């Protein structure tokens, strides 16, 4: 479907639908906390400002009754289980509210033995989409303010979750902006591609928000912070920035779940998810690997086949 046809059609998700998901999440969270299936639930509470949401770990029934789901629930909560709230898993099973794209991260973390399925109670959200960044949050999700990743979402149904909150989440076809951008870059002559990325990377201030928010960047010591020997220059200069971005993309290749959180948090608007996508696309073409909703034995760069392609090697 072309963009024009899309414009004429009113694409929006009824706020009622988010209310229904909210109810379902609350009911389930209260239940599993009451019967002590879990010690806590990682979910979203209303933010202080109207129309916002903030991630929270709730441990009581009263708090659980305040959980919400709205288009403002953008965060991928799985990062709480590898970083900020890592300790909570030691106390017992944990409930977690997960959209389809967040579940890909959970599955990847299970593949890497960072999480065990039996330690989690996954409240999957049949997700119609969330707000993009830098858009007007009108209370209703429309084609104008939906996140770029949601336009091309293939995981609206959180298959494999313990329970699913919500019923349907069909959106009319949206223009795949990110895929179009990918195609545009791929079609550029090589020197132009270099100029494109150089301009983007040069703006990076090395705040490391993208690393902090990524569920897969759980290394206790990042290669890019090491000083002796220093592998990647750590000050925000173009040389170190280029290296940092290539290393980041490389270290996430075959692992990234495509939640696009890195891109969302970047204060300098660097399109990081394009790099993630390029790597994902290559690993799909070469090794038929795609980040999915179920854990696998090993990621594509942790295994090999004797007859892997080696046409580039002499």
């Amino acid at each position: 479907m072309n963009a024009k046809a899309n414009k004429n059609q009113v694409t929006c998700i009824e706020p009622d639908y988010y209310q229904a998901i909210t109810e379902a999440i609350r009911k389930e969270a209260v239940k599993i906390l009451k019967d002590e299936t879990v010690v806590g639930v990682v979910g979203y509470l209303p933010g202080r400002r109207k129309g916002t949401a903030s991630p929270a770990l709730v441990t009581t029934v009263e708090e659980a009754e305040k959980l919400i789901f709205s288009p403002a629930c953008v965060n991928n909560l799985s990062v709480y289980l590898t970083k900020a709230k890592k300790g909570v898993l030691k106390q017992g099973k944990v409930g977690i509210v997960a959209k389809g794209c967040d579940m890909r991260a959970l599955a990847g973390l299970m593949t890497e033995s960072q999480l065990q399925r039996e330690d989690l109670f996954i409240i999957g959200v049949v997700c119609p989409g969330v707000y993009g960044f830098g858009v007007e949050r009108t209370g209703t999700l429309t084609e104008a303010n939906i996140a770029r990743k949601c336009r091309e979402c293939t995981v609206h149904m959180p298959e494999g979750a313990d329970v699913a909150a919500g019923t349907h989440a069909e959106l009319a076809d949206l223009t795949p902006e990110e895929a179009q951008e990918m195609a545009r870059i791929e079609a550029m002559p090589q020197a132009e591609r270099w100029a494109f990325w150089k301009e983007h990377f040069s703006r990076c201030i090395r705040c490391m928000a993208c690393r902090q928010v990524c569920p897969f960047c759980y290394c206790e010591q990042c290669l890019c912070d090491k000083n002796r020997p220093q592998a990647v220059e750590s000050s925000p200069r173009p040389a170190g920035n280029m290296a940092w971005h290539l290393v980041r993309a490389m270290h996430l290749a075959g692992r990234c779940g495509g939640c696009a959180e890195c891109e969302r948090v970047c204060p300098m608007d660097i399109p990081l998810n394009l790099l993630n996508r390029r790597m994902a696309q290559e690993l799909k073409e070469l090794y038929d690997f795609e980040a999915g909703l179920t854990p696998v034995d090993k990621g594509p760069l942790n295994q090999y086949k004797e007859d892997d392609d080696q046409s580039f090697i002499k």
Partner: protein
Amino acid sequence: MHAATKQHDFEPKIVAFVCTWCTYAGADLAGTSRMQYPPNVRVLKFPCTGRIDPVFILRAFQKGADGVLVSGCHPGDCHYMAGNFHARRRFAAFRALLDFVGVDLNRLQFSWVSAAEGGKWVDVVTELTERVRTMGPMPEFKELEHEEQWSGAINTPELKEAYDSIG
């Protein structure tokens, strides 16, 4: 007899990351057999191609290499059983990434050279050196080294005016 050494306008710097068990021994064989190959190549020895991190390649380019060679044991011959199999996948992915950000892959060569293949080592090194020679120096990464933050062009008239007024 040695062929007369030719003078070139440009001598490329080539960095070769090789594994100690096969390619290094292969290069050694080329040397002990008195085969000739371009002296442009600087060989760095690693235990295994599996130990050669993509970040080494980046660093080589940043520090002035015009071409990089990564070479190790043939598949199945790895001293550590599978190091080169893992490296093969990793470098396949890394090439795609470099291509995506606009690096010319003709400057980066991968090869399998066994301890018995002194001749192949000579061929691989010669071919890469001559190819890079025709391509000329690699400016991209070196330029980055000398640039400071906000190196982007001054692209609005207001900024340009403000900049010029600083005098």
